[in-house]
């Protein structure tokens, strides 16, 4: 019990007649970095706003640090929040921005100064304290916004796509900094993004959302290697997983499509695998190019398109109309139009039931 920092129970949220969150349950541990990941409009921000108390829930409960805060004011929930648009108060200096919440709490002057100095020190924004937000760069503004959450001295930080307004280079810098900050402070952090790189690099656990439901809640490697359903498999990973429609045959021992067949030996199934329609998902890095054909192991494929990605090259193959991509080191050279033998690493592939789209 004491290990749970934020707990969401049966949360519902409607905007008028539109149900955005439906019976959502989520437990987040102390010091955990949880990332909410999902396509646009799936309810990530809505969930975060509910946790912050900026939206009134339609049903269910929210507990933070052991207290039921379902109906508490945002300021009383022990949270700090960082927004995508920074949301700095434009007419105040950076110091004013940092102090604003503390003054509202009526903290003594020296305490305020101490906390501002500490936050400024951690985030390296001491020289900016007397500037107005308009005179800061995007990265500096976001640092100040993080500082504003930091000075509140709270257990839980909420981030709503804090890096998505920054350019790519700055984003990766701040990402590293956020990770360091998390190691240093050991607060609970809940972080919304639709950038999967951010999710995979930052998260202790990722909650993948779609249409108001959590599809999978697991650590990054599990989400990546063992996606729990077809949606998660397609959403995570770039370049994306190749999906092959086919059928499981021979008592669950082989997968066949378009007259081709691969053996399923080595696949770690969740339970028993029965014959029937299914979808085989293979990530491009688990497709190899073999020199010789092996029955049940390799597929005859024509190389369609070659995409150099720098360190790797992405090859798009065509197996009788089924598209399979492979990621190979860029030193090797291939010719489009030629035929190759593709080897699929079944032990790292994913099988989904065609009807329920759940992992088998």
């Amino acid at each position, binding site marked *: 019990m004491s290990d749970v920092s934020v707990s969401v129970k049966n949360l519902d949220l409607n905007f008028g007649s539109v149900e955005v969150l439906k019976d959502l349950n989520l437990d987040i541990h102390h010091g955990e970095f949880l990332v909410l990941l999902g396509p646009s409009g799936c309810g990530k921000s809505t969930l975060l706003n509910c946790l912050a108390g900026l939206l009134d829930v339609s049903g269910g409960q929210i507990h933070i640090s052991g207290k039921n805060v379902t109906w508490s004011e945002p*300021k009383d929930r022990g949270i700090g*929040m960082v*927004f995508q648009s*920074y949301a700095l108060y434009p007419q105040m200096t950076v110091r004013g921005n940092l102090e604003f*919440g503390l003054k509202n709490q009526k903290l003594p002057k020296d305490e305020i100064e101490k906390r501002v100095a500490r936050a400024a020190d951690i985030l390296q924004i001491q020289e900016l304290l007397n500037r107005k937000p308009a005179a800061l760069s995007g990265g500096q503004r976001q640092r100040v916004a993080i500082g504003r959450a930091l000075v509140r001295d709270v257990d839980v930080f909420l981030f709503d796509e804090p890096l998505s307004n920054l350019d790519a280079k700055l984003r990766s810098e701040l990402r590293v900094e956020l990770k360091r900050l998390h190691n240093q402070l050991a607060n609970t952090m809940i972080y919304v993004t639709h950038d999967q790189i951010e999710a995979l690099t930052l998260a202790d656990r990722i909650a993948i959302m779609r249409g108001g439901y959590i599809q999978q809640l697991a650590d990054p490697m599990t989400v990546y290697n063992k996606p729990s359903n077809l949606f998660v498999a397609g959403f995570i990973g770039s370049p994306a997983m190749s999906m092959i429609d086919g059928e499981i045959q021979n008592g669950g021992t082989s997968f066949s499509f378009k007259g081709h067949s691969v053996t399923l030996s080595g696949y770690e199934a969740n339970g028993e695998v029965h014959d029937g329609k299914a979808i085989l998902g293979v990530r491009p890095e688990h497709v190899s190019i073999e020199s010789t054909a092996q029955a049940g192991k390799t597929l005859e494929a024509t190389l369609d398109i070659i995409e150099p990605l720098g360190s790797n090259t992405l090859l798009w193959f065509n197996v009788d109309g089924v598209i399979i991509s492979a990621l190979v080191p860029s030193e090797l050279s291939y010719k489009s139009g030629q035929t190759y033998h593709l080897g699929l690493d079944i032990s790292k592939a994913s099988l989904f039931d065609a009807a329920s789209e759940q992992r088998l």
Partner: protein
Amino acid sequence: MTDATVNFDGPHGPKPKPIFSGRNIFIYGTLAIVSAYYLLPLYIMIITSLKDMDQIRGGNAFELPIGPDFEAWVKAWSSACTGLNCDGLSRGFWNSFQILVPSVVISILIASVNGYALANWPFRWSNIFFTILIFGAFIPYQVMIYPIVIILRELGLYTKLTGLVMVHSIFGMPILTLLFRNYFTSVPEELFKAARVDGAGFWGIYFKIMVPMSLPIFVVAIILQVTGIWNDFLFGVIYTKAENYPMTVQLNNIVNSVQGTKEYNVNMAATILTGLVPLVVYFISGKLFVRGIAAGAVKG
């Protein structure tokens, strides 16, 4: 750099157009005629106000004043007679002033809080409330004149300045509320959320976040209200009595007083004096307005 030699002989680029091109003559000619059309009456008002009656009787309205004198202005301000009293426009000026300041302050204070509440703190019936308020802007106010007389009489405010202040404040409410609501809705929502997380309440956010960001819209509201209230004639006549008449009514009474000869110079001076306040407001706030917009445009 062999193939990129620059050809220096002769001018390049399109030929500059002559200043007296047909197009320029047409544009500036039109502008000159239109401005003359608007400025001519003002010119006649000013020179007439600086003439003495002998010269005016001379009959040439366009003639410059001989030895301009400001006697008419002094008279218009301090001793021109209406049918009832002979202390010029000064009485009307102070009345208007006493009506203007509280009306502007009260209406803007209330309307800005209204607009803020409607924009940022939606409550159960807030949209209906807003619709009703806006609807108020479209009711012709002739319909309300008599009911308001009765209300003011019942409140004991009929013919008093306080009553008129109340009427002006209420009549300004719909349009000002609309103005402020629309402005506050355009303030990024995340700013408001951040302030709530920081523990600011309704008034804290209003005074510390919203108002400092909203100088331009306050200036717009002030311009609207000052000119509207200062230029009001109808409510002034109806809801006050002789010693409380605002400047516009006083002006009318001076210009239309039937005793003696028409003193055109005094009338002209009085008219300009009455128009001076809105004019000054335009000039000052025009500058503030631009500065306000420039300051407000900075994204945080």
